[in-house]
Every structure is written in structure tokens, then in C-alpha cells.
């Protein structure tokens, strides 16, 4: 079954709230992890791994490093979800 981008966004936001200690209202798609939210590299990796575990995908670190904003991160995750064999 194909997972909609909105569903991916929901998962990503939930993980960001629980792991990065952020409020849901802070998580607009155009916010920058580093510049706006003060997320450092370790926190970003932990967050990305939690999203990987939640959705059964793999996010290469160089691709994670290329996503500065929440929206582009969601795009990356949605693309990986779409590529899952079961999708």
C-alpha cells in the first residue's frame, strides 16, 4: 500500500517532537533543523535513525546531510518509503 506524503510528515513530526524535544507548532516544513531549531549533527542522526526504524527504510547519511529543512527531509523519507519493496 502506498503511504501518502502526509502520513510520512506525521511520522516525521511525531519523532521530532519526542526525540528533538520540539513543539509541534515549531515544525513547519520550511524550518531549518540547524539554523532555526538548533539541532546538532548527533541529534539529527538519532532522529533520522528513529524515522528509519519507524518506517522500515534506510536513509544514507550523505542524503540526510543534504536536507536542511523539514520539508526536504520529508521529501527524502517519502521517496524512500515509495521505493520500499512492499509499497
Amino acid at each position: 500500500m502506498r503511504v501518502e506524503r502526509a502520513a510520512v510528515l506525521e511520522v516525521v513530526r511525531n519523532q521530532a517532537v519526542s526525540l528533538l524535544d520540539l513543539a509541534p507548532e515549531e515544525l513547519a516544513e520550511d524550518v531549518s533543523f540547524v539554523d532555526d531549531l538548533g539541532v546538532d549533527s548527533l541529534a539529527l542522526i538519532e532522529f533520522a535513525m528513529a524515522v528509519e526504524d519507524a518506517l522500515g527504510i534506510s536513509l544514507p547519511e550523505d542524503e540526510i546531510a543534504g536536507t536542511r529543512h523539514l520539508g526536504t527531509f520529508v521529501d527524502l523519507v517519502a521517496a524512500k518509503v515509495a521505493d520500499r519493496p512492499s509499497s
Partner: protein
Amino acid sequence: MSLLAGRRVVVTGVLTESSLASAVVRLALAEGAEVLLTSPVCRAHRLTSRVAPRLGVAEPVLELDVTLQQDLDALADAVREAGWDRVDGVVHALGYLPEGFDATTFAGTPWSLASQVFEVTAWSLAAVAHALDPLLVKGSAVVGLTQNTSQVWGDPDWLQVSHAALAATARSLARELGPRGVRVNLVAGGPVVTLLARALPGHTSLVEEYAARAPLGWDASSATSSEAIAKAAVMLLSSWFPATTGEVVTVDGGATAVGAR
């Protein structure tokens, strides 16, 4: 060939799947080793615990913050509680550069900051070896991961200085542990691109410099480079370097063996 069959290896420094220590763990497991990971409690421990099953390492991840004496004091017992009565190998892959570290003020760095870098990067080699000393046996090997320190690369920083101190620490430790048949060596790898390394000042220019110099080539973003460093570490953990201690084995495609092009 199983270089590490039956050998029990404690590995520090696994944070992400791209950590150099993770490359060592993968290869050590493939060569027959049993592996225990250590990580400081808090966020790093959560990361290591997430990575451990991906690498095929069983729980528990032992709690070890090398700046906490109580963690060092408890390490040997924690290894025993995990069911090991000896440790055949120790991998030291620790380094620390505080976030926001300003590389442009090398001489102005306060001791409070420089000492933290030294403590985690260099002193901890001796501290971890001492903590595990009751479990080390004849033939055990301590292997640290380091970088070239024969000259300053890019802007000076206290991490480079501490890596030079790490080599000196390894030699001193080799002298102390040698009579018991325990070896201590380092692998000085070329730069490898990880998410954490990207944050280091001057990393990109370092990557380009190594690629330009290395007669064998050095691709910092290739898994082959991490594997090359891991292979050297696994060889030093094995019984195939029985008469080598206090040494630094360089794995960088030859980049530091030659001058600028």
C-alpha cells in the same frame, strides 16, 4: 580465514553506521570475533544502542564516559557481567572537539577546553586500557584509531595536538603492557566523510588534499576507505602482528608519505 576467531573485543566510539569504529566492528564480526560496544550514557548511548543491532552486535551496550572515573572503575565488572572472563582486544576510537570550537584561535584556546579534548582523545587510551587491565591476557591487543600528526593539516586545533599525544600515549602504554604480552598500536587513517566529520573545520579541504596527494588514491567518501582502515585495525587485533607494539600503521593511500604535488 577467520583472523579473530574466538577473540573478544571491546569497541568504543560507535555512534553511527558510518563511524570508523562501526567498520571495524563489521569486519571483526566477519572474522569471528565477539564484540561488546561501549558508549556514554545519554544521547550517545541511545545512538550506539540503535546502531548495535544493525551491526549485528548483541546487547548490552556498556556505559562508558571516559571523563567519569566511576564509569572507568565499573567497566571491568560490566564486561564480566556480560559473561566475559577476558578481553582479547580493545578498540579506541574516541575523539572530541566541542561544537562551536573556533579553530582560528588555537593559541587562545583556554585549558578548560583544550584539556577536555586531550582527556577524551589521548588520555582515555591509557584510562580504558587500565580499566580493562584485569581482563587483558597474554596476546591481547589494544588498537587506537588516529590521524596523521607529522604536520599541521589546515587550521591548527587541539584535536590534532591530542592525536599526537595519543601516539605518545600508545608508546608509553606499549612499554607498560609489553612485558605481559599485551600489544598497543594505532592506525592513522586518511580522512573519511561521515556526518560528524563534515562538522569539523577544514574537513573538505583535507579530503581534497589527500585525494590529490595519495599515489594509491584516497576517496574519503568511499566505504572502501573505511574498510581499508578497519582491515589494518583487525590485523593489529589479530595474532598476525605478534612482535609489533607502540607502532602507528598509516592507511591513507600513501598521501602522507609524499609531499605536495
